[in-house]
């Protein structure tokens, strides 16, 4: 069996088109660069103020003043541009980011996303999550099908506080690709040898099946 997170990241990498401006969230999306076809040149944006995020630096070449939004050191690509936070979020809010790929706690069958807060949890932060899902032209959610407690994450309606309503376009789990087609949730692809029955068992949202 393959590593679920790598299956998801590998499939998500194939969603990206050459030349796209892409913002990757923390967690699974951060693995996507490992799977990108070198011929697919995308431009990675990070909301703390950089367009042109390069690979992680090798030891000894870390610049402590050059980080991504997960506060990890990065490098600059040729042609990278740096700007302040207000400009960075103007790019996001203004619709200049083609695709954001990010994780979620829950996604509903209406395309609502909850990914910033677990009630009663120990986290208190929203960061750029709301800005990104509202502003980006395309929102791709990468997440395991089940939460750590075994509950489905693709559900009829979110029970956690919403990040935004009706913004998700594509959902990639370790077993399936779902797309919203005219506001309807559609299972379009099975991954890693999964069957329709496997996907049905781990999904409580209503969806129709249109496998390619």
């Amino acid at each position, binding site marked *: 069996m393959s590593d679920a997170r790598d299956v998801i990241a590998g499939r998500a990498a194939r969603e990206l088109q050459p030349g796209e401006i892409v913002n990757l969230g923390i967690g699974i999306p951060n693995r996507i660069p490992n799977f990108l076809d070198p011929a697919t040149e995308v431009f990675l944006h990070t909301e703390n103020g950089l367009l042109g995020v390069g690979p992680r630096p090798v030891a000894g070449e870390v610049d402590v003043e050059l980080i991504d939004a997960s506060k990890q050191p990065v490098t600059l690509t040729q042609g990278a541009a*740096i700007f302040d*936070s*207000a400009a960075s979020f103007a790019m996001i*809010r203004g619709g200049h980011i083609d695709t954001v790929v990010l994780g979620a706690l829950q996604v509903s069958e209406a395309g609502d996303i909850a990914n910033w807060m677990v009630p009663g949890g120990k986290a*208190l*932060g929203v*960061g750029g999550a709301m800005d990104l899902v*509202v*502003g980006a032209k395309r929102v791709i959610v990468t997440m395991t099908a089940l939460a750590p407690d075994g509950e489905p994450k693709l559900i009829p309606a979110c029970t956690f506080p919403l990040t935004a309503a009706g913004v998700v376009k594509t959902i990639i789990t370790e077993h399936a690709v779902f797309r919203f087609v005219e506001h309807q949730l559609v299972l379009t692809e099975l991954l890693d040898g999964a069957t329709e029955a496997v996907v049905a068992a781990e999904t409580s949202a209503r969806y129709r099946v249109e496998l390619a």
Partner: protein
Amino acid sequence: MPAQTTTAVAAIAEIPDGATIMVGGFGLVGAPLTLIDALVEQSTATNLTIISNNVGEAGRGLGLLLRQGRIKKAIASFFTSNPEAVEAAMSGALVYELIPQGTLAEAIRAGGAGIAGFYTPVGAGTELAEGREQREIDGVLCVLQPPITADVALVYATWGDGLGNLRYRRTAQNFNPAMASAAALTIAEVAEIGPVGSLEPESIHTPHLYVNRLVPSTIRLADLQGADA
């Protein structure tokens, strides 16, 4: 008026009890570490309101000020990087306002630019919009965000000149330019202060009219992280 070059202790001494203070940085990157250290170690100002993306880390940066019980209220987008700040907020010991990061940056920019507020779709219809004015504009639900200003801004720049012109380096820029514009008193900590004319005019990120005090930087992020390694 040109910025006055002074020491961290003298500049920080101008901050009174009850002041609202903006502090630049994304995590510790771009944070004015020398000024924060002076505020923690050499000032007794208390009852403070802090506006910053994060409230430092546990026991580091602004996290030290929190431990001293001198922060009354914090406005930020992400408290999670300092578990002590999350705990203080949850227990009610710290009054807090959580704002989406882009809305926070734009509200500060608006504060410096004389904009009386703006409607944004970000956060509309969510828990973070509760208690705020919301209205539909062109069919999209939006929330009204007022501008954010402060009594004092503490910012960090790698390069500056004797007038107070500033130039930031790499992703240490982040919130610093907006904050420098939005406070009554802007104190800039600068790593390399050159003579007037040493910065190319087109390369200046923050023109000197925003900057009131210039303080040479003595605590560098690289040194801090080196000490941890």
